[in-house]
């Protein structure tokens, strides 16, 4: 079980990091979301994995660690707020620069030319 859980977190991180390094805002936001899943799961896992042990007094024999759960609960909500903020930032970028490149105008402030491939549009 632990191996599966670790693999899930690893895969989420890897996909997220790859997307984080893309040049357009939308993949970056998606990558950020994937990473926040991974982080939430990781924080949750600090309380170890347990089955049928929900930390509600009287509902089980043993209880899972409630502290990481409480932390992760707020982390999920704040993670959403941050995702929304980044999405809006990218929309504003789109509105101001008429381009969804993460660096604002593509190529305008970047010294080394990167436009070997012209966008398909």
């Amino acid at each position, binding site marked *: 079980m632990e191996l599966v859980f670790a693999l899930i977190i690893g895969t989420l991180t890897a996909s997220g990091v790859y997307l984080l390094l893309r040049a357009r805002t939308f993949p970056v936001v998606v990558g950020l979301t994937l990473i926040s899943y991974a982080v939430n799961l990781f924080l949750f896992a600090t309380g170890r994995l347990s089955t049928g042990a929900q930390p509600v007094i009287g509902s089980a024999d043993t209880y899972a660690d409630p*502290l990481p759960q409480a932390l992760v609960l707020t982390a999920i909500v704040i993670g959403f707020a941050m995702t929304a903020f980044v*999405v809006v930032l990218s929309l504003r970028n789109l509105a101001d620069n008429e381009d969804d490149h993460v660096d604002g105008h593509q190529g305008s402030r970047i010294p080394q030319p990167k436009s070997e491939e012209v966008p398909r549009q």
Partner: protein
Amino acid sequence: MSLPLVVLLPFLGAIAAPLFAQGGRTAIAIASSVPALIALAALYPHWPVLADGGVVRFHQDWLPAIGIAVSFRLDGLSLLFALLILVIGLLIILYARYYLKPKENVAKFYALLLCFKGAMLGIVMSGNLLLMLVFWELTSLVSFLLISFWTHKQDARRGARMALAVTGGGGLALLAGILLIGRMVGSYELDDVLAAGELIQGHALYPIALTLVLLGAFTKSAQFPFHFWLPHAMQAPTPVSAYLHSATMVKAGVFLMARLYPVLAGTEQWFYMVSFTGMATLLLGAYVAMFKHDLKGLLAHSTVSHLGLITLLFGMGTQLAAVAAVFHVINHATFKASLFMAAGIIDHETGTRDMRRINGLWRYMPHTATLAMVAASSMAGVPLLNGFLSKEMFFAESLALNLPGLWAWLPPIVATLAGIFAVAYSARFIHDVFFNGKPVDLPIYPPHEPPRYMKIPVEILVFACVMVGMFPAVSIGPLLYAAASATLGGDVPEYHLAVVHGFNLPLLMSFVAFFGGLLMYSQRQRFFDFHARFREIDEKAVFEAVVSRVSSVAHSLTGRIENGSLQRYLLLLLISVIAVTLAPLLDLGLFIGERGLSPVDAPTAIAAAVMILASVLTAVLHRERFYALTLLSVVGLIVALAFARFSAPDLAMTQLSVEVVTIVLLMLALYYMPSWTPLESRRSQRVRDVAIALLAGVGMTLVTLAMLTQPFSSISDFFLENSKPGGGGTNVVNVILVDFRGFDTLGEITVLAIAALGIYAMLKDTALTPPPGDGLGHPWTRDAHPLMLKQIARPMLPLALLVSVFIFLRGHNLPGGGFIAGLITSVALILQYIASGMVWTQARIAVKYHNVIGVGLVFAVIAGAGSLAFGYPFLTSTFGYITWPVVGTFEVASAMVFDLGVYLTVIGATLLALVSIGRLSPHSAIKPKREGT
């Protein structure tokens, strides 16, 4: 109590004095004098104690944990400096009344002057080194503002910048030095430090601490090679030059050396660093002063030279030399301040300070000329004036230095040489300005005597020069004794204050200096020709060049690292994270721990496989954004399942509802954005990114695996035990959120609120026109709000709200609570927006979401503050049981109010964010939603 008052008063005066600016210059000058007069009266009663070498203290703990205290300490040395600051300050106030023109910003000038006075008093009276440093830096800042008082002058601004850079930089060194000393002694209190001289000198870090402290002192007191800022600070109004740059601020470095003399002095390092710096400064200043045509330039370099003299005396390390140094501080302050004032009068009355033009002023202003000539004679060291006495002591001490071999000749020769220069430039000051033919082309002609009262400060100072010069034992003896005993830490050597000690070697040196100086002045043309052969270094140009060089290097360095490309920052960030964490993680050993692995069941394995696949596909197919989004939602849903599977029902519910909102949000964003990502990166770039991603992924896998298989102990037992008896709820997660860790939650919902308001602000005046179709040639559906969706959504609302109320109410005891209920309500409302459109829904929801957020936060704070009313700490919760007919007995906890705040904030924030985005489109009324397609 009178000590903090003395320091505080000038600052209060700085606030109050500008109020009198309306009343004219006289009114504000009188108002500005009040703090100093009160301070003098407050200091007077302490004199009997101080005269006997006693100390007056005031101590108030401030941050005891790091050794900072508001602690003031008055002894003979501080008193001497405090008197200089207060008395000369009063004279300057009077002088500036006539120096400043009516239309100038008099209020600013006096306010700054008083601030400076307070800061300076703070330096000399602080009983805590860190507190002293605060005042030390404050003098640098105020000095910056005073030098650049005439902000329209470029030279003034540059001079101010230079002074700030040098003295402020020195202040940083001093801070480091003080921290080191504090670390050695274990206290920053001056009393403790002064008692720990041996400890400090024996410490391995002593040379470093000494160097740092001396850097602070040397920069402040304009010692070579940092002397260059002082002449350029002469762009300040003359009262400032007289006060800051001759009598007080430049003496702060000297004061520091005197203050820490018992602690730092007496070692070889001290001797070599301080005395050689002093010697170099003494000679250099005196030499350059002779060639300055600017009256204030001459005085400034002479000040540099005299500061070097005082430093050299301290560096010699003998007790008599220290006495002479303290004595010279007094003497230099009196004659130099009066000379600056005289220079200001001349500038004021002739319109220029160029000594090639102002000649023969004796005829026009004999009174001022007499005063200036006496003061200049004192500067030259003419007998019967105070400058002579301390210079004589200096000569005697230079002879007494026991240097090996031929080196023994060096100090007396340097001293005599500097004496010759001093006489020469003093002679030049007297002869060039007041005699030597007629004035040349003066801007104001004919010059005449200044207003009567403008001369009074000069008269008082010159009178002091004469009194000290003729009757030293009576006039200054007791004060000097008190100051010297405080400097030396108790034992004062035998010294004799008398005008003539009989014919001896020092007197001979004085004669040599006097006549040598006159000879040099008479042959000045040769020296000028000689000096003209060297290209003069313009320190300002050099300084500016260095500054611009440094800043351009910094610019290019910054530009190279921070080139505006987010992609690159992220890359560097990720690489550094991997690089930094790699070694410690390998040290920890990433392997399967003692707990071992538990078996996997089939449903979990299948879900995990789907999730891994979806996650990888999200990355692989990311260029088709719609697919990526769909796959992302699969991942999110399985995350929710994972929480449910591993005993976290609250998390599962939260994740599920957040997932819905997130996907709606991203859909909405995608509506405005291109629906695919162009292929822009090179293959090599992609390979590199994949490698980094794999590294990160493998790393996280190993870390998680190692962590999950380690045994652990948690503090959660406390929460589990106290949840019911202490918090009144059985759902421990919820009790932690609203009770045990309620303050965290309050912070978190505040962050949520700020994020939502930020989103609102960012999009407030932005309009975005969505692309006409999905970019692949397909137009949007014209059926913006499909009938089926509309019809299902509307009856869903009350049902969903009911569910959310239920979830909210049971939250304290069963999975649920404010966060989850708020998200469910948000989802229900968002569904209405999607189904029926912005205009329709908004018309039916009468609240503004900003207000919902505000009310929510207020609820949360009130719930927390309520406990204060009963004398409990913030956010203490209470609960009780109420029995209602029909419903039965149920529990009511004050934490419910807090949870209600959470609930409202979550709704407000979520909807404000989404509605802000939805409103972006100029025709949001008929805006189609892709969910409907």
